[in-house]
């Protein structure tokens, strides 16, 4: 049995579902996991997560920071945020993106603020990417 457990602080997205395959935006690049993968623990970057369940249901979500643990009995994914295409409002994202990009131009930013803005931007870009994929 290869199970998927996927949660964020606000909700459980998927629990205890039989997994066929999953693609993750891992720290070192995109990871495609099939049942029987070697045990692995990795952090996830902002990006798009895709998975397909045994029932044939498949889903795409944009996530920000997260981590994933793969063991012999399944995959555990914890993400800071996870949104699907329907939840995204393109206008507000573009606004936010612009705001954060302007922030980066500001030279008085300290390291923390800079990092935070970078994070926001990569999260928002992932969400935009998800939208553009949907419209194709």
């Amino acid at each position, binding site marked *: 049995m290869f199970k998927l*457990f996927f*949660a*964020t*602080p*606000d*909700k459980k997205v998927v*629990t205890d579902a039989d997994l066929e395959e999953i693609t993750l935006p891992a720290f070192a690049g995109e990871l495609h996991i099939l049942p029987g993968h070697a045990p692995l*623990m*990795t952090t996830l970057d902002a990006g798009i997560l895709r998975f397909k369940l045994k029932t044939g249901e498949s889903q795409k979500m944009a996530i920000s*920071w997260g981590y994933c643990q793969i063991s012999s009995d399944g995959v555990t994914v914890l993400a800071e945020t996870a949104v699907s295409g329907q939840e995204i409002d393109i206008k507000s994202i573009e606004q936010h993106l612009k705001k954060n990009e302007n922030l980066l131009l500001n030279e008085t930013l300290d390291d923390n603020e800079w990092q935070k803005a970078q994070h926001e931007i990569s999260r928002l870009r992932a969400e935009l990417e998800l939208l553009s994929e949907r419209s194709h």
Partner: protein
Amino acid sequence: MASLKDIRMRIESTKNTQQITKAMKLVSAAKLRKAQHQIVNMRPYAHSLLKVIANIAITERVNHPLITPKQEVKKVLLLVLSSDRGLCGGFNAQINKFTDQYIKNNKDKYEAIDFIFIGRRASDFFSKRKLKVIESMQRLDKDISYALASKVAEKVMHFYLDGQYDEIRLIYNEFKSAISQAVVCETLLPVDLEKETLTATEGHVSGFAVDMIFEPRPEKIIDQLLVKHFSVQVYRCMSESVAAEHGARMTAMENATNNAKDVLSRLTLFYNKLRQEKITTELIEIVSGAEAL
């Protein structure tokens, strides 16, 4: 002696008050349900996060500033969670009392105790005192989200890592049930990993392979996980405080509605008695007037 009209007016106004308290109770009940839902939703995330930390901590020796207690605690940062609005029974009074007591007990122990107030009630209460307040935040009940909690957590964590404070504590109302809350003081930083991981795994660890591949190195992973764990803790405390607030308000409004009911029945009885008396007097007057004729 109150006239009939006066009493009638009092009955009317009591009725109005009762309607308001009843409505507030219903609103609080709905909000409480939402807050409880939030707590329940967060649990799986928090639980599995802690489990992974525990797993790594067992296979690898972890040494991180967030979990190593400082040798000497001199400066303490106290986060006090209260509500923005009143009419919620002893909710804020308990917090204020507890904080006050804490200051009294620990004034001499530490070099400095500084504050961050989240919620208007506590910051108002302590505003006249000479306390060093780093920040006051408001409107917690409207937009409590993980994003907000992690912002607070991040800020506090930097204070800690920069060495401005040696210990960070949080005073809040723990949500026990809809009718009972308890004030607790929790040490947020340094994180007591041993105690917490023990409760998460109940002493045994399973499903963790020895030949696990780590990407990036385990130290890096645990570094990020601990930061997230801390945010989750702050989020949990905030959610609990919000749930406790709504619970307290619900109970307070329930009591108020019942009181109004009692007052109403007493007033009505009094009103009827008075009315009866008046009629009797009038009758006697008429009868005696007729006899005199």
